[in-house]
């Protein structure tokens, strides 16, 4: 579904990604962990070209999206993204946040988008917040709305960039619950996170990124039960 080949990304003289290649298949839940500064967020942001790779190629369903001639807006309609800082549109109500893209991109009519939004909001228990503004919501509620906003576009894959890192501890659970539900529904997911419990429970593959490369990749059992590289062993001993 997503094929990444020899991805490099340099910021000024900081070489963040040093040749990442990976293949995400339909229905997989890829969880990426690693120390801060390892390039995992940059890697994720390259997948929908929020960061433009310095070199290397990315294919999405057979389209080479790193080709400058590709209409990236069309591709992004099929790739949802959830941010660490939620990034809800502050000037719009929750309902407007969710319906803006589907309506403006003429994927749905206004009414259909509204009904769909209410259905999705109900699923995450926030139907009564439809007319509220983002500033009136808690962090956990904001993140659940952000997930719904992405889902309203019916994406084929969802990218999560440390979705629980900016949350108070008591709100982490409610967001992870929504993500688990999404995983069970069969959504293809790529998740950058520090939640090892989530990686173990939901991940079909866990990647360990360090120094701009994928240092280790395995199933959750093997990844946590039998880590190979010394760097991963050290990392796990610190976070578990």
């Amino acid at each position, binding site marked *: 579904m997503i094929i990444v080949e020899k991805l490099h990304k340099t910021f000024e003289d900081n070489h963040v990604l040093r040749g990442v290649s990976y293949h995400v298949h339909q229905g997989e839940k890829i969880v990426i962990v690693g120390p801060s500064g390892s390039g995992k967020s940059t890697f994720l942001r390259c997948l929908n070209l*929020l960061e433009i790779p310095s070199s290397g190629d990315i294919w999405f369903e057979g389209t080479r999206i790193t080709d400058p001639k590709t209409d990236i807006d069309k591709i992004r*309609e099929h790739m949802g993204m959830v941010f660490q800082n939620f990034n809800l*549109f*502050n000037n719009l109500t929750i309902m407007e946040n969710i319906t*803006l*893209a589907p309506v*403006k991109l003429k994927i749905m009519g206004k009414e259909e988008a509204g009904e769909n939004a209410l259905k999705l909001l109900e699923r995450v228990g926030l139907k009564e917040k439809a007319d509220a503004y983002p500033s009136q919501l808690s962090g956990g509620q904001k993140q659940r709305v952000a997930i719904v906003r992405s889902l309203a576009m019916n994406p084929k894959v969802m990218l999560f960039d440390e979705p629980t890192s900016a949350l108070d501890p008591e709100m982490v659970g409610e967001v992870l619950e929504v993500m688990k539900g999404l995983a069970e529904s069969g959504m293809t997911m790529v998740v950058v996170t520090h939640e090892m419990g989530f990686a173990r429970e939901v991940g079909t593959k866990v990647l360990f990124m360090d120094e701009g490369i994928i240092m280790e990749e395995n199933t959750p059992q093997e990844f946590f039960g039998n880590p190979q590289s010394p760097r991963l062993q050290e990392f796990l001993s610190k976070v578990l």
Partner: protein
Amino acid sequence: MQAWFEKVARMFKTAFITGDRWKLYLEGLGVTLQIAVFAAILGMLIGTVLAFMKLSVRRNGKRTILAVIANIYIDIIRGTPSVLQLMIMWFIIFSSAKNGVVVAVLSFGINSGAYVAEIVRAGILAVDKGQMEAGRSLGLSKAQTMIYVIIPQAVKNVLPPIGNEFIVLLKETAIVGYVSLTDLTRAANQIASRTYDAFMPLIGAAVIYFVVIKILTVLLGILEGRLRKSDNR
């Protein structure tokens, strides 16, 4: 005491009532407001265009030719006195023009545009860049995200400094006397020299400016309050 009151009353009468002089202040105020309002509109149009020119970037992250032009414009306008700009417009560029008000509107509009450009640019840059990223990640184009998400938030940011800019502009029109337009300040000055009393006309004009700007400030406050609706917690 009574004599003093009588004297003040006489001065007031001479400055405002005799020969229907109050009409002269009103006509002057009319000129002042005309120039200020139309120059403000022109300034906002020019300023917004300049701001977007300055914000434009090429794919490789370098500045565009539009950004360079906008920078030169802003540098020149901010680097020269507005009185001089007005005189250059009136005596050189439009030396054959008949309608002084139009020339003044152009001159102040061009001047104000340079300041508004920086205000608008700052207002747009102050919107969190995550807002643009979120819009783009949903498949919206840069222009769509600008229109529906960034600009509405930027408007809230720029309203206080834009109000300030308008107030400055309104008062700065007092220099149009240099190109023989009779605005409020010049009207007051003319009455002062005709009646040999500077106190009443000048203080009177000052009070009129103050009241107009006070009304404006209150209106801007109300507008700002409305736009802050989405910030309520």
